[in-house]
């Protein structure tokens, strides 16, 4: 009887543990796949570069055929690489517990749209019959690439925001518990010390307010990551990333204040 009960408990625990392990493994698997696809892309890109050099130099039929074969392989792999990268971002969004459901769905929809574009684009590659066709097919991705990059950058920022929001929830819980404890303990401390405790609580709360203001700024700035060139978009992205760092700093400072408050409450004098 005991043996059966133990077996049932073991099966129950293993059933619970399985999906958790899968969640943790999914972004790791996606990342490994992305690295593998990147490696493949580099090889095919190098093969194409060699063939292109020979074609541009000798203009022979053989060189042209080799260039055509290698460019098709490279174009296909390039789409595959971008696809694996977008799948990695998608998995990261799935695992991010700090994002609201609405935000997660919004960014996942963006990624799905980009994946659809890449799928359509990759279907054109087998029908390429000449180097001119290859150039035209490549130009379709080139003209769309800025839009794709904007979606990527916005998703990266959203992931950072999600991580910070998750930490903010923990901060909120710790702060609330600390405030409640201080109030409950108020009768056992001197009025002077209680005044100090209340002042420090205000400062901890102030740090959280500053954090929230920074997060609001980031949300506005993320929507404005646009630009007519990659360089312009990168400048906006770097600015938003700097704000993410500042928001993190506010949380860190507030947590440090909380640790000080804990030490103040710990001792009688």
């Amino acid at each position, binding site marked *: 009887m005991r043996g059966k009960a133990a077996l049932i408990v073991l099966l129950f625990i293993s059933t619970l543990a399985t999906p958790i392990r899968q969640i943790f493994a999914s972004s790791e698997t996606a990342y490994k796949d992305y690295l593998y696809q990147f490696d493949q892309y580099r090889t095919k890109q190098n093969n194409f570069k060699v063939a292109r050099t020979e074609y541009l130099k000798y203009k022979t039929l053989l060189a042209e055929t080799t260039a055509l074969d290698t460019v098709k392989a490279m174009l296909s792999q390039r789409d595959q*690489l971008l696809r694996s990268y977008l799948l990695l971002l998608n998995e*990261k969004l799935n695992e991010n517990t700090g994002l609201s459901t609405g935000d997660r769905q919004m960014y996942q929809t963006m990624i799905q749209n980009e994946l659809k574009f890449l799928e359509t684009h990759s279907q054109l590659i087998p029908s390429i019959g000449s180097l001119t066709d290859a150039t035209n097919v*490549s130009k379709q991705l080139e003209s769309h690439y800025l839009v794709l990059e904007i979606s990527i950058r916005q998703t*990266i920022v959203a992931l950072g925001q999600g991580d910070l929001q998750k930490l903010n929830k923990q901060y909120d819980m710790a702060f609330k518990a600390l405030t409640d*404890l201080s109030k409950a303990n108020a009768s056992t*401390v001197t009025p002077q010390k209680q005044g100090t405790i209340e002042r420090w609580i205000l400062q901890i709360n102030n740090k959280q307010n500053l954090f929230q203001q920074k997060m609001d700024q980031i949300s506005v700035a993320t929507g404005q990551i646009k630009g007519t060139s990659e360089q312009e978009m990168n400048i906006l992205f770097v600015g938003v990333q700097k704000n993410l*760092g500042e928001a993190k700093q506010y949380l860190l400072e507030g947590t440090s204040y909380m640790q000080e408050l804990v030490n103040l409450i*710990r001792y009688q004098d």
Partner: protein
Amino acid sequence: MENEQPAGTPPITTDIQENATLEPALQPSSAPVPPEMTKKRVPWVAILLGVAILMMGAIYGLQVGRSVKVQTPTPSVAPTANPTTETVKQRELAPVATASAFLEIERSIASLSAAINAMNTNDTSLNPPSIELPLGLETK
């Protein structure tokens, strides 16, 4: 006996009484240093010099003695097993410090601090891949 003279020599006249009031012909240009003054100055200088030499010697002796003292190993004091309560003063804990709620808060704040420190706002593993877009097949 005194006034006996040989014959034929002129008689000796004593002018002592006549010259008794005469002043010396040449007076010294500067007054000579009285012997008492020179006798007093010389010993003082010697004493001062002696005292100075003695003091310098004493200072040197002290310094040498000090350096020798530093070089000599001092016996190490063995730590006592039971320190006195007078030297170690501990802060008194508040009653709330041992409460489970307090300990839980302390743990959660420490965990939060570690999580924030570990968070990377610029995760390079998420950087998009750098790809070459134009094929470069078009000849001018």
